[in-house]
């Protein structure tokens, strides 16, 4: 596990916070927290794209953020538990692991012109 993948995972973690914030924030402090979470998550995601392919980083960022949000909705906000959700999260995680395995770090072929 190298730093760039850790950045994507932390970025997705903060994405879950701001998605919840956009839905539930109702005063100055919760909105401030939401904005800070947006800035942290985008900053980390953008920096991870420095060494990893941006298309891969963005897909993983969006995917893990979605999985985390669905998980948080079930655990903390009483959304119904469905088998389909669990299967889709497993497919998503398998895809992320696959991307980690096929992605070479620091090599963005053809980018330098």
């Amino acid at each position, binding site marked *: 596990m190298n730093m760039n993948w850790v950045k994507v995972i932390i970025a997705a973690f903060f994405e879950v916070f701001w998605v919840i914030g956009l839905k539930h924030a109702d005063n100055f402090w919760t909105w401030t927290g939401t904005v800070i979470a947006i800035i942290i998550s*985008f900053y980390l*995601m*953008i920096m991870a*794209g*420095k060494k990893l*392919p*941006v*298309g*891969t*980083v*963005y*897909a*993983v960022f*969006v*995917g893990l953020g*979605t*999985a985390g949000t*669905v998980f948080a*909705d079930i655990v903390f906000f009483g*959304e119904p538990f*469905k088998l*389909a*959700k669990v299967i*889709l*999260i497993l*497919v*998503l995680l*398998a*895809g*992320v692991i*696959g*991307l980690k395995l*096929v*992605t070479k770090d620091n090599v*963005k*072929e*053809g*980018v330098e012109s």
Partner: protein
Amino acid sequence: MAWASLVIAGLFEMFGVSMINKLHRDRNLQSVVLLIIGFGASFLFLAYAMKSLPMGTAYAIWTGIGASGGAILGMILYGESKDWKRLVFIAMVLGAAIGLKLVS
């Protein structure tokens, strides 16, 4: 108008993702500004579309256009890998993310 707005939001997201590539290549302020404009406009059009479309559907289509479009532009404009395994795994991640937004 909501559907048109949603497609425009997706296109701005594609643009924003491309600007991340441009930022790392050119390392200038112009790229940062364009990146913020891209994602900012994308969120505004998405918010407008969500006023009349179901949230899960709107999110799913927005993600689908933006993230897959961003990956395609990365391959065309910035030489990202076209390895079939990479494409299959990206499709798995985005397909599952879209599915989750539709069933939630």
